[in-house]
């Protein structure tokens, strides 16, 4: 048996295109590194500055905690959207409409000034006597306001993503689980949601990375410890905005890279039994006759 060792098709234009792209990238990097307006010395001075590192920490705290709130709310909203109770469906729709529809900056301003608009949180019978009351400003301090504001806003976007994800799971899965005597809520959590995750994760990765940058709007609250505020403040002091923007960009890029790696593993986890298996060398006889109701393949990073 003489193995075929054919000469591949030549794609000269591809290589020209590739060369042009490479050249542009090299020129861009070269012009960035040599352009004195970027003040790389200042960049080096501040990139590991203690304030900047603290800012990175706070940005991460805001991102993670608001995403956690958003994910919990989004799951709730997506489930409500499928509820039998029309009022729940309606509330979920209005929530998504309202929070997607208004600017997050305005929402953050609201949460920042909720203490002014409503000086006291009163627990009591509506239109009746009050039972308990708190000072709003104590309960909703800047950190809480920032996290709540970002979390509520994001929940609306994620709710749409989760809704689309849940609908992508084949109906047969729900029926099979119900036929086993599992209750609907359990079916959702253990059968539908884990399968929906494959479709949910890539856009959620987008949202998380977007959120990282959105945290810079918390100045509206005002919350003044995040990365953008800190680097802006340093820029004001030094009157050198470009290198300090580069510092911020550098850190955002680092966090994004870490998140992208994380996304890769999360995708792989929820792809188990579906994505990973397809790629394994098919040694198992008989040849994996793809389950006809199987989910679409998908979405591996890199």
């Amino acid at each position, binding site marked *: 048996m003489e193995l075929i060792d054919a000469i591949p098709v030549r794609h000269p234009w591809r290589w020209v295109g590739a060369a042009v792209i490479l050249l542009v990238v090299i020129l861009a990097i070269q012009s960035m590194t040599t352009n004195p307006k970027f003040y790389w010395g200042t960049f080096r001075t501040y990139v590991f500055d203690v304030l900047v590192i603290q800012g990175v920490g706070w940005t991460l705290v805001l991102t993670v905690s608001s995403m956690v709130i958003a994910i919990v709310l989004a799951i709730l909203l997506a489930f409500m959207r499928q509820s039998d109770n029309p009022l729940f469906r309606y509330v979920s729709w209005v929530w998504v409409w309202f929070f997607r529809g208004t600017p997050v900056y305005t929402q953050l301003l609201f949460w920042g000034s909720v203490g002014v608009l409503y000086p006291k949180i009163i627990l009591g019978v509506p239109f009746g006597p009050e039972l308990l009351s708190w000072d709003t400003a104590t309960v909703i301090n800047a950190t809480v306001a920032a996290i709540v504001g970002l979390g509520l806003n994001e929940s609306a976007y994620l709710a749409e993503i989760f809704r689309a994800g849940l609908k992508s799971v*084949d109906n*047969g*899965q729900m*029926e*099979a*689980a*119900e*036929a*086993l*005597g*599992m*209750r*609907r809520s*359990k079916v959702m959590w*253990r*059968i539908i949601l*884990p*399968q929906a995750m494959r479709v949910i994760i890539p856009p959620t990765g987008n949202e998380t990375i977007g959120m990282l940058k959105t945290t810079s709007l918390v100045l509206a609250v005002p919350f003044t410890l995040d990365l953008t505020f800190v680097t802006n403040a340093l820029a004001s002091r030094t009157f050198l905005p470009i290198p300090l923007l580069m510092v911020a960009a550098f850190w955002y890029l680092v966090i994004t890279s870490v998140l992208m790696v994380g996304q890769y593993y999360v995708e792989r986890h*929820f792809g*188990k*039994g*579906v994505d990973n*298996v*397809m790629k*394994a060398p098919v040694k*198992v006889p*008989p*040849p*994996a*006759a*793809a*389950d*006809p*109701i*199987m*989910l679409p393949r998908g979405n591996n990073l890199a």
Partner: protein
Amino acid sequence: MPDATHTSAEQAAQPVTVKPLVEIQGVHKFFGDHHVLKGIDMTVKPGEVSVIIGPSGSGKSTLLRCINLLETLSAGRIYVHNDLIGYREVNGKLHDLNTKQIATQRREIGMVFQRFNLFPHKTALQNVIEAPTQVKRQSKAAAKLKALELLEMVGLSDRANFYPSQLSGGQQQRVAIARALAMEPELMLFDEPTSALDPELVGDVLEVMKNLAKSGMTMIVVTHEIGFAREVGDTLTFMDGGVVVESGNPREIIANPQHHRTKEFLSRVL
């Protein structure tokens, strides 16, 4: 509980020793204007294998789905083990059961679908122990032991840790049977369990079903496998256009169908 008048009338006509496990009485089903089941009556005794055949669209799947509460009835009653399915009857008025009660009723009934519907993100073993651990709250260890026994029974003990996508159609269907059996149902419903399989793989699944029948499981089987009906079936029901056209001993009906529609249908699938 069936109402009093019914119990006396129907029960008397049957040998008193065997109480039917499934009683289907005058079941109608509409999808919008579409009248799919037009008054189905049927009884299945404990340990009986009841085979349903009929052309596409005759309502066979719909009937099974009604028994398992995947569809709501438009009219009629279904009793499993003397329990009215889907409703509570109080002073002659029907009340919907709540989701918890429905789930409880379903546990007595296992169902195997044409398209298997295994959970793709769980291995064969995890598919089988899912319901016992989550619904019956069995310990994981106990459920696993039982599951391995069942997988052994369907000839798949060496495939316990494979994901559905790593199994052939026939193997997937056998896992689906094991999964339904793990809940120890009194009644098993099969909706064309072999029709999504390549001809070569059909045999394995039918073998498992035969053994199940021999072990005394009550089964309602919708199938196109006339051979299976002849060999294993206790009764054969031929449905067409939402009604039961003919019903009785499978060997007799297959050898000598009374109704011309039965004749025509058998000539096409045999």
